[in-house]
Protein backbone atom coordinates (compact mmCIF):
# COMPACT_ATOMS: atom_id res chain seq x y z
CA UNK A 1 0.00 0.00 0.00
CA UNK A 2 1.37 3.42 -0.87
CA UNK A 3 0.70 6.82 0.64
CA UNK A 4 -1.86 7.94 -1.89
CA UNK A 5 -3.99 4.86 -1.09
CA UNK A 6 -3.89 5.78 2.59
CA UNK A 7 -5.19 9.29 2.11
CA UNK A 8 -8.91 9.55 2.88
CA UNK A 9 -9.56 12.49 0.57
CA UNK A 10 -8.64 10.43 -2.47
CA UNK A 11 -5.86 12.82 -3.43
CA UNK A 12 -3.78 10.88 -5.97
CA UNK A 13 -0.99 13.43 -6.16
CA UNK A 14 2.42 12.34 -4.89
CA UNK A 15 3.14 13.33 -1.32
CA UNK A 16 6.34 15.30 -0.77
CA UNK A 17 7.65 15.84 2.76
CA UNK A 18 9.56 19.11 3.11
CA UNK A 19 11.66 19.48 6.28
CA UNK A 20 12.97 23.02 6.38
CA UNK A 21 14.79 24.92 9.10
CA UNK A 22 14.37 27.96 6.83
CA UNK A 23 10.58 28.20 6.52
CA UNK A 24 10.69 30.54 3.52
CA UNK A 25 12.27 27.71 1.53
CA UNK A 26 9.20 25.59 2.11
CA UNK A 27 7.17 28.43 0.58
CA UNK A 28 9.27 28.29 -2.57
CA UNK A 29 9.17 24.49 -2.77
CA UNK A 30 5.38 24.39 -2.30
CA UNK A 31 4.93 26.79 -5.19
CA UNK A 32 7.36 24.87 -7.41
CA UNK A 33 5.76 21.47 -6.85
CA UNK A 34 2.24 22.35 -7.93
CA UNK A 35 1.73 18.75 -9.17
CA UNK A 36 2.31 17.32 -5.67
CA UNK A 37 0.82 17.50 -2.22
CA UNK A 38 3.53 19.24 -0.22
CA UNK A 39 3.64 18.80 3.57
CA UNK A 40 6.05 21.24 5.22
CA UNK A 41 7.61 20.50 8.62
CA UNK A 42 10.13 22.33 10.77
CA UNK A 43 13.53 20.89 10.02
CA UNK A 44 16.41 20.03 12.32
CA UNK A 45 14.15 18.93 15.17
CA UNK A 46 15.35 15.35 15.35
CA UNK A 47 13.62 12.02 14.74
CA UNK A 48 13.42 12.63 11.02
CA UNK A 49 13.14 8.89 10.45
CA UNK A 50 10.14 8.63 12.77
CA UNK A 51 8.38 11.45 10.95
CA UNK A 52 9.04 9.88 7.55
CA UNK A 53 7.91 6.44 8.74
CA UNK A 54 4.65 7.95 9.91
CA UNK A 55 4.11 10.11 6.81
CA UNK A 56 5.31 7.61 4.16
CA UNK A 57 6.00 10.27 1.53
CA UNK A 58 6.80 9.67 -2.15
CA UNK A 59 9.71 12.13 -2.03
CA UNK A 60 11.60 14.04 0.64
CA UNK A 61 13.20 17.48 0.58
CA UNK A 62 15.41 18.75 3.43
CA UNK A 63 17.55 21.83 4.00
CA UNK A 64 19.90 20.78 6.81
CA UNK A 65 22.87 18.41 6.90
CA UNK A 66 21.42 16.67 9.92
CA UNK A 67 18.06 15.95 8.26
CA UNK A 68 19.83 14.96 5.04
CA UNK A 69 21.89 12.39 6.90
CA UNK A 70 18.90 10.95 8.76
CA UNK A 71 16.59 10.95 5.76
CA UNK A 72 19.18 9.26 3.53
CA UNK A 73 18.91 5.96 5.40
CA UNK A 74 15.13 6.03 5.13
CA UNK A 75 15.24 7.06 1.45
CA UNK A 76 17.58 4.21 0.62
CA UNK A 77 15.47 1.68 2.47
CA UNK A 78 12.29 2.80 0.67
CA UNK A 79 13.86 3.81 -2.64
CA UNK A 80 12.64 7.40 -2.34
CA UNK A 81 13.97 10.50 -4.07
CA UNK A 82 15.66 12.72 -1.49
CA UNK A 83 16.77 16.28 -2.23
CA UNK A 84 19.00 18.40 -0.02
CA UNK A 85 18.78 22.15 -0.57
CA UNK A 86 21.77 23.80 1.07
CA UNK A 87 21.12 27.55 1.02
CA UNK A 88 24.30 28.39 2.86
CA UNK A 89 26.43 26.42 0.38
CA UNK A 90 24.10 27.36 -2.51
CA UNK A 91 23.91 23.73 -3.60
CA UNK A 92 21.29 21.20 -4.54
CA UNK A 93 22.05 17.51 -3.99
CA UNK A 94 20.09 14.41 -4.91
CA UNK A 95 20.41 11.18 -2.95
CA UNK A 96 20.06 8.38 -5.47
CA UNK A 97 21.10 4.73 -5.24
CA UNK A 98 22.97 5.28 -2.02
CA UNK A 99 25.07 8.26 -3.11
CA UNK A 100 24.72 12.02 -3.20
CA UNK A 101 24.94 13.76 -6.59
CA UNK A 102 25.20 17.50 -7.12
CA UNK A 103 22.49 18.92 -9.37
CA UNK A 104 22.59 22.01 -11.55
CA UNK A 105 25.15 24.12 -13.29
CA UNK A 106 26.39 26.25 -10.43
CA UNK A 107 23.47 28.65 -10.28
CA UNK A 108 22.42 27.20 -6.93
CA UNK A 109 19.08 25.66 -6.08
CA UNK A 110 16.22 27.09 -8.11
CA UNK A 111 12.49 26.29 -7.99
CA UNK A 112 12.75 24.97 -11.55
CA UNK A 113 15.63 22.60 -10.83
CA UNK A 114 13.82 21.27 -7.75
CA UNK A 115 10.60 20.74 -9.71
CA UNK A 116 12.41 19.01 -12.57
CA UNK A 117 14.38 16.66 -10.34
CA UNK A 118 11.41 15.70 -8.16
CA UNK A 119 9.09 15.22 -11.15
CA UNK A 120 11.71 13.21 -13.02
CA UNK A 121 12.50 10.96 -10.08
CA UNK A 122 8.83 10.36 -9.28
CA UNK A 123 8.10 9.53 -12.91
CA UNK A 124 11.05 7.13 -13.05
CA UNK A 125 9.97 5.47 -9.82
CA UNK A 126 6.37 5.09 -10.97
CA UNK A 127 7.49 3.67 -14.30
CA UNK A 128 9.90 1.27 -12.60
CA UNK A 129 12.87 2.84 -14.34
CA UNK A 130 16.32 2.45 -12.73
Amino acid sequence: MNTTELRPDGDRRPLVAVLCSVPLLAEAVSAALEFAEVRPFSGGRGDTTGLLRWLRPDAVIVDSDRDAQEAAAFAQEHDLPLLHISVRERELRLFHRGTWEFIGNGEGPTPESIRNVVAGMLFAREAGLP
Partner: protein
Amino acid sequence: MRRTRILVADSLHIFRAGVKNLLERESDFAIVEADSLDDVLRVVHQECPDIALIDLELPPSGGVAVVQELAQRCSTYTIVWSFEPSRDAVLAAVRSGAHGFLHKEISPEGLVRALRGVVQGEAPLSRDLASLMIEALHGLDERTNARERATVLSAREREVLDLVAQGARNKQIAAVLTISEFTVKRHVQNILKKLELPSRKAAATFYRTAFGIEEAPAAAAPIA
Protein backbone atom coordinates in the same frame (compact mmCIF):
# COMPACT_ATOMS: atom_id res chain seq x y z
CA MET B 1 -5.86 50.57 -1.84
CA ARG B 2 -2.23 51.28 -2.67
CA ARG B 3 -0.10 48.20 -2.16
CA THR B 4 3.24 48.38 -0.33
CA ARG B 5 5.97 47.87 -2.93
CA ILE B 6 8.62 45.51 -1.61
CA LEU B 7 11.99 44.88 -3.22
CA VAL B 8 13.48 41.46 -2.44
CA ALA B 9 17.21 41.66 -3.18
CA ASP B 10 18.87 38.26 -2.92
CA SER B 11 21.19 36.39 -5.25
CA LEU B 12 19.59 33.06 -4.36
CA HIS B 13 16.67 32.50 -6.70
CA ILE B 14 14.89 30.04 -4.44
CA PHE B 15 14.94 32.49 -1.56
CA ARG B 16 13.38 35.25 -3.66
CA ALA B 17 10.81 32.75 -4.89
CA GLY B 18 9.88 31.82 -1.31
CA VAL B 19 9.38 35.43 -0.26
CA LYS B 20 7.51 36.26 -3.44
CA ASN B 21 5.20 33.28 -3.09
CA LEU B 22 4.45 34.22 0.50
CA LEU B 23 3.86 37.93 -0.01
CA GLU B 24 1.85 37.58 -3.18
CA ARG B 25 -0.81 35.79 -1.16
CA GLU B 26 -1.25 39.00 0.83
CA SER B 27 -3.33 41.65 -0.89
CA ASP B 28 -1.38 44.59 0.52
CA PHE B 29 2.05 43.80 -0.97
CA ALA B 30 3.51 44.13 -4.46
CA ILE B 31 6.86 42.42 -5.05
CA VAL B 32 9.83 43.28 -7.22
CA GLU B 33 13.04 41.26 -7.30
CA ALA B 34 16.75 41.92 -7.75
CA ASP B 35 19.74 39.58 -7.61
CA SER B 36 22.62 42.09 -7.39
CA LEU B 37 23.43 45.73 -6.73
CA ASP B 38 23.11 46.54 -10.45
CA ASP B 39 19.70 44.91 -10.49
CA VAL B 40 18.65 46.92 -7.41
CA LEU B 41 19.69 50.15 -9.17
CA ARG B 42 17.73 49.11 -12.27
CA VAL B 43 14.63 48.55 -10.14
CA VAL B 44 14.90 51.82 -8.22
CA HIS B 45 15.53 53.72 -11.45
CA GLN B 46 11.99 52.76 -12.46
CA GLU B 47 10.35 53.32 -9.07
CA CYS B 48 11.61 53.41 -5.52
CA PRO B 49 10.20 50.59 -3.38
CA ASP B 50 8.57 51.32 -0.04
CA ILE B 51 10.58 48.57 1.65
CA ALA B 52 13.73 46.74 0.55
CA LEU B 53 14.70 43.35 2.01
CA ILE B 54 18.40 43.07 1.30
CA ASP B 55 20.62 40.03 1.69
CA LEU B 56 23.73 40.84 3.74
CA GLU B 57 25.84 39.09 1.10
CA LEU B 58 24.22 40.56 -1.99
CA PRO B 59 26.79 40.65 -4.84
CA PRO B 60 29.10 42.21 -5.57
CA SER B 61 29.88 44.24 -2.40
CA GLY B 62 27.34 43.07 0.17
CA GLY B 63 24.07 44.40 1.55
CA VAL B 64 25.57 47.28 3.53
CA ALA B 65 26.79 48.91 0.30
CA VAL B 66 23.31 48.49 -1.16
CA VAL B 67 21.73 50.20 1.86
CA GLN B 68 24.06 53.16 1.36
CA GLU B 69 23.28 53.35 -2.37
CA LEU B 70 19.55 53.18 -1.74
CA ALA B 71 19.74 55.88 0.94
CA GLN B 72 21.14 58.29 -1.65
CA ARG B 73 18.37 57.63 -4.15
CA CYS B 74 15.16 56.79 -2.30
CA SER B 75 13.36 57.14 1.01
CA THR B 76 12.93 53.37 1.08
CA TYR B 77 12.84 51.53 4.42
CA THR B 78 15.74 49.10 4.17
CA ILE B 79 15.89 45.83 6.07
CA VAL B 80 19.01 43.69 5.88
CA TRP B 81 18.77 40.00 6.59
CA SER B 82 21.08 37.01 6.77
CA PHE B 83 21.79 33.65 8.37
CA GLU B 84 23.61 33.86 11.74
CA PRO B 85 24.80 37.46 11.50
CA SER B 86 27.68 38.66 13.65
CA ARG B 87 27.17 41.61 16.00
CA ASP B 88 29.47 43.72 13.84
CA ALA B 89 27.42 42.89 10.74
CA VAL B 90 24.21 44.00 12.46
CA LEU B 91 25.83 47.17 13.72
CA ALA B 92 27.40 47.95 10.32
CA ALA B 93 24.04 47.55 8.60
CA VAL B 94 22.22 49.79 11.08
CA ARG B 95 25.02 52.39 11.04
CA SER B 96 24.87 52.47 7.25
CA GLY B 97 21.19 53.40 7.44
CA ALA B 98 19.28 50.10 7.57
CA HIS B 99 15.98 50.41 9.44
CA GLY B 100 16.05 46.85 10.67
CA PHE B 101 17.78 43.48 10.58
CA LEU B 102 16.12 40.08 10.36
CA HIS B 103 17.13 36.43 10.45
CA LYS B 104 16.54 34.56 7.22
CA GLU B 105 15.12 31.73 9.34
CA ILE B 106 12.15 33.97 10.16
CA SER B 107 8.74 32.35 9.93
CA PRO B 108 6.43 33.40 7.08
CA GLU B 109 4.00 34.91 9.59
CA GLY B 110 6.86 36.73 11.30
CA LEU B 111 8.03 38.24 8.03
CA VAL B 112 4.55 39.47 7.09
CA ARG B 113 4.13 40.94 10.59
CA ALA B 114 7.53 42.63 10.40
CA LEU B 115 6.81 44.18 7.00
CA ARG B 116 3.43 45.48 8.13
CA GLY B 117 5.15 46.89 11.20
CA VAL B 118 7.60 48.78 9.01
CA VAL B 119 4.68 50.44 7.24
CA GLN B 120 3.48 51.55 10.70
CA GLY B 121 6.92 52.99 11.47
CA GLU B 122 8.35 50.10 13.48
CA ALA B 123 11.97 48.98 13.17
CA PRO B 124 12.13 45.19 12.75
CA LEU B 125 14.84 43.69 14.91
CA SER B 126 14.50 40.33 16.63
CA ARG B 127 15.29 40.16 20.36
CA ASP B 128 18.59 38.35 19.96
CA LEU B 129 19.73 40.79 17.28
CA ALA B 130 18.81 43.73 19.50
CA SER B 131 21.03 42.22 22.21
CA LEU B 132 23.83 41.70 19.68
CA MET B 133 23.57 45.33 18.63
CA ILE B 134 23.74 46.60 22.20
CA GLU B 135 26.83 44.44 22.76
CA ALA B 136 28.35 45.87 19.60
CA LEU B 137 27.58 49.43 20.73
CA HIS B 138 29.23 48.76 24.09
CA GLY B 139 32.27 47.37 22.28
CA LEU B 140 32.37 50.47 20.14
CA ASP B 141 32.21 52.76 23.21
CA GLU B 142 34.99 50.78 24.83
CA ARG B 143 37.13 51.12 21.71
CA THR B 144 36.48 54.86 21.41
CA ASN B 145 37.36 55.43 25.08
CA ALA B 146 40.52 53.38 24.76
CA ARG B 147 41.61 55.32 21.68
CA GLU B 148 41.07 58.60 23.50
CA ARG B 149 43.20 57.34 26.39
CA ALA B 150 45.91 56.26 23.96
CA THR B 151 46.37 59.85 22.75
CA VAL B 152 48.48 60.57 25.84
CA LEU B 153 51.21 58.31 24.41
CA SER B 154 53.99 59.63 22.23
CA ALA B 155 54.47 58.25 18.72
CA ARG B 156 57.44 56.13 19.93
CA GLU B 157 55.45 54.79 22.89
CA ARG B 158 52.66 53.83 20.46
CA GLU B 159 55.20 51.90 18.38
CA VAL B 160 56.50 50.11 21.46
CA LEU B 161 52.99 49.29 22.64
CA ASP B 162 52.07 47.98 19.20
CA LEU B 163 54.96 45.53 19.41
CA VAL B 164 54.14 44.61 23.01
CA ALA B 165 50.59 43.80 21.87
CA GLN B 166 52.05 41.52 19.21
CA GLY B 167 53.85 39.55 21.90
CA ALA B 168 57.37 40.92 21.34
CA ARG B 169 59.94 40.87 24.16
CA ASN B 170 62.04 43.92 25.06
CA LYS B 171 65.05 42.55 23.22
CA GLN B 172 63.01 42.03 20.07
CA ILE B 173 61.43 45.49 20.33
CA ALA B 174 64.87 47.02 20.73
CA ALA B 175 66.04 45.26 17.58
CA VAL B 176 63.02 46.31 15.53
CA LEU B 177 63.15 49.98 16.61
CA THR B 178 66.97 50.12 16.72
CA ILE B 179 67.07 51.34 20.29
CA SER B 180 68.60 49.89 23.44
CA GLU B 181 66.78 47.36 25.59
CA PHE B 182 67.05 49.81 28.47
CA THR B 183 65.18 52.47 26.43
CA VAL B 184 62.46 49.96 25.60
CA LYS B 185 62.09 49.18 29.31
CA ARG B 186 61.78 52.87 30.09
CA HIS B 187 59.15 53.32 27.36
CA VAL B 188 57.14 50.40 28.75
CA GLN B 189 57.29 51.90 32.27
CA ASN B 190 56.10 55.27 30.90
CA ILE B 191 53.27 53.59 28.99
CA LEU B 192 52.03 51.80 32.11
CA LYS B 193 52.25 55.01 34.13
CA LYS B 194 50.45 57.17 31.54
CA LEU B 195 47.67 54.65 30.97
CA GLU B 196 47.48 53.73 34.66
CA LEU B 197 47.79 50.05 33.87
CA PRO B 198 49.27 47.44 36.24
CA SER B 199 51.20 45.24 33.82
CA ARG B 200 52.61 44.68 30.38
CA LYS B 201 49.84 42.13 29.74
CA ALA B 202 47.18 44.72 30.63
CA ALA B 203 48.82 47.20 28.27
CA ALA B 204 48.72 44.67 25.44
CA THR B 205 45.03 43.98 26.10
CA PHE B 206 44.33 47.72 26.20
CA TYR B 207 46.03 48.25 22.85
CA ARG B 208 44.15 45.38 21.20
CA THR B 209 40.86 46.80 22.48
CA ALA B 210 41.67 50.30 21.28
CA PHE B 211 42.70 49.28 17.80
CA GLY B 212 40.61 46.15 17.29
CA ILE B 213 43.56 43.80 16.95
CA GLU B 214 43.10 40.05 17.37
CA GLU B 215 45.25 38.41 20.03
CA ALA B 216 48.13 36.44 18.51
CA PRO B 217 47.63 32.65 18.87
CA ALA B 218 49.56 31.18 21.78
CA ALA B 219 51.41 28.75 19.54
CA ALA B 220 52.54 31.46 17.15
CA ALA B 221 56.06 32.69 17.53
CA PRO B 222 56.36 36.26 18.76
CA ILE B 223 57.64 38.92 16.42
CA ALA B 224 60.92 37.96 14.72
